[in-house]
């Protein structure tokens, strides 16, 4: 296991109280695994990613621990996390297009960043150039300022910088959502090639777009309203989901070849609960067609098939009967 997350619970502190953005997250990411993390806005997927690398105010760690290659990460301590960041765990942030210092040439910024890690920039240059080729950027980019690059190019520069020191785990936070379909594909494939070339050992790819994950991820973790709903190999999530939320979600996605006139898809009635004061138990309960009294308790996140975890009482019930 490359990454092991245990009972991670993170709240946001706001004026009106604690927003319970992430509850009891327990899961693992294996060596070489690309794990997709999907869910609707506000489901806690970005909170999860951020708390693994930059847990800063107003986020607050309530409990839980995170192990990376067997070593515990001091995630709540901004200073003590520094040696781990970039070298062991790294992130391509959501705001990648604005993540570069506007007044520094790309090459200079990289050199300064590397120097702060006691890495010799000049000696690193050949490797840097090799990686530029890989993300399909010309070497001249090093001598340019961020505003001279297009949005997609800036994002690729950030992808390259974040993986320079070959971290064990890379978090990619919604990096395809602002892109056109054609660049989406290129970027998603680059992530896979990063893993294949062992620039990064494992990846967590956060997105709201499950079809992107279907293309590149080995497994998918579905979150709903701050709770983990289901984690399974990609094919299982897409073709044999077991959590009612996943099932309804997948069946509501329009596909090329599906026409309104022929097959009318339906969404999930209702809206996600407010996390300021969430309902007890399973948070999908109010929208779930299968909900019953047991759902007033929080369902555990249990393995039902090899590599297939679900948090749903109904699932456990049918399993027990079978």
């Amino acid at each position, binding site marked *: 296991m490359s990454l092991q997350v245990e009972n991670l619970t993170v709240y946001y502190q*706001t*004026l*009106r109280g604690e*927003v319970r953005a992430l509850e009891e997250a327990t899961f693992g990411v294996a060596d070489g695994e690309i794990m997709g993390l999907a869910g609707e806005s*506000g489901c806690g997927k970005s909170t999860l990613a951020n708390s693994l690398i930059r847990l800063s*105010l*107003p986020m607050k760690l309530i409990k839980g621990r995170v192990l990376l290659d067997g070593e515990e990460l001091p995630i709540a301590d901004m200073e003590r996390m520094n040696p781990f960041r970039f070298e062991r765990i790294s992130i391509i942030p959501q705001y990648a297009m604005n993540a570069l210092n506007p007044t520094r040439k790309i090459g200079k910024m990289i050199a300064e960043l590397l120097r702060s890690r006691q890495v010799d920039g000049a000696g690193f240059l050949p490797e840097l150039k090799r990686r530029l080729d890989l993300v399909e950027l010309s070497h001249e980019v090093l001598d340019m300022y961020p505003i001279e690059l297009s949005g997609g190019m800036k994002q690729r520069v950030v992808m390259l910088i974040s993986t320079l020191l070959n971290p064990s785990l890379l978090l990619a936070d919604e990096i395809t959502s602002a892109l056109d379909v054609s660049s989406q594909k290129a970027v998603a494939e680059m992530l896979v090639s990063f893993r294949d070339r062992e620039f990064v050992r494992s990846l967590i790819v956060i997105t709201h777009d499950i079809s992107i994950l279907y293309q590149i991820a080995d497994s998918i973790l579905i979150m709903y309203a701050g709770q983990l709903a289901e984690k399974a190999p990609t094919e299982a999530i897409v073709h044999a989901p077991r959590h009612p939320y996943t099932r309804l979600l997948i069946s509501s996605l329009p596909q090329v070849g599906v026409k309104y006139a022929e097959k009318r898809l339906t969404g999930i009635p209702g809206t996600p609960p*407010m*996390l*300021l004061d969430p309902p007890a138990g399973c948070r999908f309960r109010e929208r779930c067609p299968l909900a019953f009294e047991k759902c007033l308790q929080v369902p555990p996140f249990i393995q039902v098939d090899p590599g297939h975890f679900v948090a749903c009482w109904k699932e456990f019930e049918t399993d027990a009967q079978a």
Partner: protein
Amino acid sequence: MKPKKKNEFLYFALRNRKLRIGLAIILFFLLLALFGPLLIHNAPFDYVNPMGAEPPSSQYWFGTTFFGQDVFAQFVLGLRATFLVGAIGGGLGTLIGILIGFTAGYRGGIVDELLNMLTNIVLVIPTLAVLLIIAAYLQVRSILTECLFIGLTAWPWAARAIRAQTFSLRAREFVDLARMSGMKPTRIIFTEIAPNMMSYLVMTFILQFGGAILNAATLDFIGLGPTNAISLGLMMQYAVLWGALLLGMWWWFIPPGLAITAIVGALYVMNVGLDEVFNPKLREM
């Protein structure tokens, strides 16, 4: 998840120390300017003390000038003038800035280019130099003319800032929606765009207010202030002119300058406080 807008604003506004301190200072001087004149028994220019200059005493709270005029009487009336200049001069500057900024930002195109050019030109001209030359040729000057000229020259940076804001708000979709509802441009500006910029306009006014006070003090001090009234700047001019420095009459020149510093400083502090209240990003600091 988000708390109600208005409550949130009030909560932060009341909790913000900068805002509270600034507001308290301004209120103190404002009350002094409003009710101070009720406490004085002497006209500001009357030679009331036959002894000439005297330090503060129970009879003359702030002492008397070289000629035996009551400094406290001059001070409270000067304070009034200061607030007047700030409110009218600063208000006028803000108003012109709003008109030009809204027009340029909303209309865009050639109108914007021209107004922007005008703004840039007036921005480069040192305001005081223009005020000087205007004031120098006016034989009789009142506080109101002073306000007028200060307002007429102080608007450019406000116009520029408001233009930029309008420009970005104009691109928001609710403006398009209002246009599709057949609303007229002026109505869109004042009912859709302006309310969204209230915080910004308030902050602009605060800075214009402070700027007008400092400008007026400068003009007064060079001898181009009102010819028929007293002001804090004039007090300082008289003090320097009649050797208050050499004679050590500190009570003559300390109060007016201190009041200006306190008022303008309080305005600046309030401005930063408001910025923190309006901009959640800054609240943590």
